[in-house]
């Protein structure tokens, strides 16, 4: 498959980020050109894509450790307090013979956020290095990252539902803990990171090199 053929950019065009119309850019590249259909500002690529993606990725990585170390919820039962982290929740499911669910929660809460961060760092580094290695596969990696991020919210919802359902006065209540806040931050930040990254950069770099 040849990717070297004309791109919109080479023809001095860009797709409007808001409505998708292919628009011609003014020839001496000036800022502030607008889409004739919807009036949004035209950009060749997402604005400051790499910087913004790095910022979100770093922030997410910083939240990743407390999200996994701190407890996400505490079960208060007859005066006893028992805290659960994400991992201990998975182990609970596993030791109670619910291994299909244990796999789902492990994948969604521990594996996916880490995988997402690693893929994004890999893509960022590959764009910085102007790599022309397997652009199709790298684009596919990006699309996977974009699609799977939302599934990490499962644990946040589990905590929400448990908190709502278990309120038996002195008998048992469940409290959300700080770990869940960090965990939510990881999900939101990685989603914003994926949204900031412009996959066309993967192709730009490989083309400027080959031409």
């Amino acid at each position, binding site marked *: *498959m040849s*990717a070297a*053929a004309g791109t919109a950019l080479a023809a001095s065009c860009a797709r409007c980020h*808001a*409505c*998708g*119309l292919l628009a011609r850019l003014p020839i001496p590249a000036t800022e502030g050109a607008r889409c004739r*259909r*919807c*009036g*949004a500002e035209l950009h060749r690529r997402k604005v400051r894509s790499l910087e913004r993606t790095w910022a979100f990725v770093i922030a997410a990585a910083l939240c990743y450790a407390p999200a996994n170390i701190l407890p996400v919820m505490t079960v208060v039962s007859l005066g006893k307090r028992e805290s659960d982290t994400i991992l201990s929740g998975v182990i*609970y*499911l596993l030791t109670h013979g*619910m291994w299909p*669910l244990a796999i*789902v*929660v492990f994948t*969604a809460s521990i594996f996916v956020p880490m995988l997402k961060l690693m893929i994004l760092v890999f893509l960022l580094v590959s764009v910085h290095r102007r790599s022309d290695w397997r*652009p*199709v596969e790298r*684009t*596919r990696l990006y*699309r996977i990252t974009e699609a799977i991020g*939302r*599934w990490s*919210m*499962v*644990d*946040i*919802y*589990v*905590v*929400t*539902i*448990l*908190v*709502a*359902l*278990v*309120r*038996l006065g002195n008998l*048992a209540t469940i*409290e*959300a803990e700080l770990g*869940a*806040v960090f965990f*939510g*931050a990881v999900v*939101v930040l990685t*989603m914003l990171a994926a*949204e900031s990254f412009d*996959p066309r950069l993967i*192709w730009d770099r490989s083309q400027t090199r080959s031409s």
Partner: protein
Amino acid sequence: MAKCRRCQAVLRRSPRDGLERTFALALSAGILFVIANSFPFLSFVMNGQATETTLLTGIVDLYRQGKAELAALVMLTIVLAPLLQITLLLYVLAPLRWNRVPWQLPGAFRLLRHAEPWSMMEVFMIGIVVAVVKLRDLASIVPGLALWSFVLLMLALAGAASSFEPEAIWERVEGRS
């Protein structure tokens, strides 16, 4: 179906009667949204005593426990984003059905595109399954009317979102002007 020559991503699908179908699904989603938010969602039954919860109960509890950020995140992803999606779909599609162009169409498209990734009802369903399994030994959990509406709402909204084609609407609007 049009695909990107370079990376094979789907660029455009043209479903039959796209507009009518999307409108019907969005309208159903709107009705189901009201039901899902006004009836008991899950009930927790222990020793014959039942605690009923609605979709909003958990959010309110998180807020009361001083976890306002979490409450906001859950509120955004299972209530506000879906509501915004439904409202905007109806706002765009209803006038078009009667051959009018909605005011601020580009703004509506833009908001809709930003709301979509934050609408996570299908993830919430998995959360319910995990929570119910975890409480299995403690009490019995009885699904309420709102839970079934929520499942249907999730399907209707997913259908509406996937059959919604802004490009086809742009062509209609521009073709007339």
